[in-house]
């Protein structure tokens, strides 16, 4: 049987620089192959450039259903894509044309391979097939009315409408809410199996593709590091890189970590409420957080988990006096904290935040040493270069980085700078807002190691916002689960993971497995 997609020594170059080297792969009908790698591994370019969807220059030979892809002129390549391939992209929010309704999108997808115009029933059936509720109603709606999960389902319906031989799904669930990822992955899996369609799945997360791929290819810096059946790669990776990748992803099945002992109460938040005014006339405000109380002890790490829009970040910012707070009190070592506008530098010195996007959280015009010293400067005591360098060393940063600017740092280095800045005031607590989720797997693993070391050595308390229970489990004594602005469940991490009481907790656990 001929392969649906056949790559022979494919290379991709950008302005003469090779980002993919000698990639060989073959996908048989009905087979699912996963291409796994960190950002910069060339995993996306390895399909976008040959298919003419990026400005990269592809070399070598590639065949889709027997027809050559590389070297084909734009028109025939376009026809080939329309006929045999379907695509699901990472960004469901922006991959639909904003001014066309769902029916127009689907009709276009149905007819792209030359099929006659579909009737209403076919469109409705296609939407129902991907699990969209009230499909008849959705047809007339515009993309902005649909949620991210629904939009990704529409993208999947479109990718499958013309019955392609090959589906290429590039990080299809990365931009989705954690509680939805598993569902969408399962949907893709079911549809492929039902229709005997071949699938190329691109992902940065080895664990998440393991259960659906027949074979896995691991890429690193444009090169194929290893390939094999997925259970073999998951159990006994042959390469060092594969082993490292596997070890860096925390999983709920890892051995139970030992957490440091905890001390007296440090921070107590009482009945916090936050609401946002909604645009429009006389629309009621959105209650982002309601009636949330929590306590953190010295040396204790507490995770706030929940889906997007659950209010977990809003709550943390309200507590840290970095966001709006309508009601409720926060006390620090037994004394009440003033409201946001009245916070003095010495009020803030005890707890410091670390944000999700490491590069964006550093002022691009400042030098690393000045960025790290800023909190000390506001405290009025300043910091000697010696002291800054020692904190940098503690966070694994070499002294030569001190005079660089943020854009000259890698993501991991930037996050270490952000952590160093948080440590310069010698705080008792860190507030980590998805501090590892924007980083590559290996880098995130090392940042997590650093945080664990700091937790032990400095007896740091932590308030950690995350959607990933497996990450939370690495550091946290306790877990608080939020949904729609309310705390719905909380308890000891291990107990909650073993015996969750709510559906939201169960969905979060499933997503972290």
């Amino acid at each position, binding site marked *: 049987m001929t392969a649906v997609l056949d790559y022979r020594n494919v290379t991709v170059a950008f302005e003469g620089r090779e980002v993919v080297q000698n990639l060989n792969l073959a996908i048989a009908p009905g087979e699912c192959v996963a291409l796994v790698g960190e950002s910069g591994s060339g995993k996306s370019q390895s399909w976008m450039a040959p*298919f*003419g*969807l990026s400005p990269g220059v592809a070399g070598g030979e590639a065949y889709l259903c027997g027809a050559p892809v590389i070297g084909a002129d*734009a*028109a025939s390549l*376009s*026809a*080939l*894509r*329309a*006929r045999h*391939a*379907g*695509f699901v*992209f990472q*960004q469901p929010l*922006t*991959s*639909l*044309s*904003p*001014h*066309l*309704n769902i029916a127009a999108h689907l009709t*276009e*997808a149905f007819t*792209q*391979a030359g099929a006659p115009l579909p009737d209403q029933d076919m469109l409705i059936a296609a939407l129902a097939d991907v699990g969209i509720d009230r499909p008849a109603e959705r047809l007339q709606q*515009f993309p*902005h009315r649909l949620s991210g999960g629904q939009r990704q389902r529409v*993208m999947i319906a*479109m990718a499958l409408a013309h019955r392609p031989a090959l589906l290429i799904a590039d990080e299809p669930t990365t931009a989705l809410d954690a509680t939805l990822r598993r569902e969408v992955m399962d949907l893709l899996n079911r549809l492929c199996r039902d229709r005997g369609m071949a699938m190329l799945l691109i992902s940065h997360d080895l664990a998440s593709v393991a259960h659906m791929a027949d074979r896995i290819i691991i890429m690193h810096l444009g090169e194929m590091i290893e390939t094999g059946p997925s259970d073999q790669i998951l159990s006994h990776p042959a390469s060092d890189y594969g082993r490292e990748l596997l070890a860096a992803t925390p999983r709920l099945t890892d051995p139970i970590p030992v957490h440091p002992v905890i001390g007296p109460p440090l921070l107590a938040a009482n009945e916090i409420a936050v609401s946002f005014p909604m645009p*429009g*006339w006389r629309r009621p405000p959105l209650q982002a957080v309601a009636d949330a109380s929590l306590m953190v002890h010295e040396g204790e790490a507490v995770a706030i988990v929940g889906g997007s829009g659950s209010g977990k970040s809003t709550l943390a910012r309200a507590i840290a006096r970095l966001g709006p707070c309508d009601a409720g009190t926060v006390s620090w070592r037994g004394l009440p904290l003033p409201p946001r506008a009245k916070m003095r530098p010495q009020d803030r010195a005890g707890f410091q935040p670390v944000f999700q996007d490491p590069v964006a959280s550093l002022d691009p015009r400042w030098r690393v040493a000045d960025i790290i010293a800023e909190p000390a400067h506001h405290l009025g005591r300043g910091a000697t270069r010696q002291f800054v360098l020692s904190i940098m060393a503690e966070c694994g940063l070499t002294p030569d980085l001190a005079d660089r600017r943020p854009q000259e740092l890698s993501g991991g280095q930037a996050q270490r700078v952000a952590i160093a800045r948080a440590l310069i005031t010698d705080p008792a607590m860190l507030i980590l807002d998805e501090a590892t989720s924007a980083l590559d797997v290996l880098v995130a693993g090392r940042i997590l190691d650093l945080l664990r070391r700091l937790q032990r050595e400095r007896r740091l308390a932590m308030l950690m916002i995350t959607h990933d229970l497996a990450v939370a489990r690495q550091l946290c004594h306790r877990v608080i689960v939020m949904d729609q602005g309310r705390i719905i469940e909380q308890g000891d991490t291990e107990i909650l993971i073993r015996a969750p009481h709510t559906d939201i907790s169960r969905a979060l656990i499933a997503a972290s497995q």
Partner: protein
Amino acid sequence: MFGLILRRLMASIPTLLAVVFLSFFLMRFAPGSPFDGERPLDPETRLALDAAYGLDQPIIVQFGRYITGLAHGDFGPSLVYRDFTVTDLIWTGLPVSLLIGALALLLAMAGGIAIGLAATLRPNGPLDCRLMLGMTLLTALPTFVTGPILALVFALWLGWLPVAGWGNGAPVYVVLPVLALTLPTMGAVAKLTRAGLAQIMTQDHIRAAQGRGISGWRLISRHALRPALLPVISYAGPAAAGLLTGAVVIETIFALPGLGRYFVQGALNRDYPLVMGVVTLYAALIVLFNLIADVLYGWLDPRVRG
């Protein structure tokens, strides 16, 4: 949609009142009077005139009267063109200004979008570069430079068209003023279209459509053009206003009996009601243009419809 229009109309009332208020008091606190002619009037005639036009009343009373009149569609009498009301003057001048402005706006939009599209077909190609340089040139050419040059070439040297005048709106008289007024706006529209398309073409939904095998003209017309025109539409409201007020210069160059000339004359002669009438009318027209632009915007982008 209806609610939006209604709300915008309500919101424009304070703006218009502010315009009336500002222009009223600005004019009144200015030195000079409409009755300052070549030689000074004797005090008695002066007082009589002031009384006849209500200028001897306290200023608040005058303002109140003016607003009341305005609410009834009455702009009051002209103080300089003594036999005419301001409404009469507006009715003679407005059609000329409006015709020229509307024609220029249509031409500028149609031509500008077409040129922007032509440039986008081969991004950064020789045609693109030349067109865009040309369009920058057009936006930088003030109408009072292009107007005389056009007249010089087409009227004086080639003799195809009349140099100036209105000729009761005969087409040959309209061509040059409209052309001079069109060019800078057309350049701006072309550049906005080009920039809008260039930005849209890198977006995710375009790549997704390419993945479905859509390419070339169909990709642009179906998936890119409508979102790319959004900045053009936001520009169109102020541009329409600019064309209307910009017509002041064109009317001067080509000696057209439009509203702009009445305005400049009125301002120089302290003809309070005339000046305020024109300013109020133009502010209302600008509000109207922006409203139309907003409605168009909603048609192009379903997201703002909510």
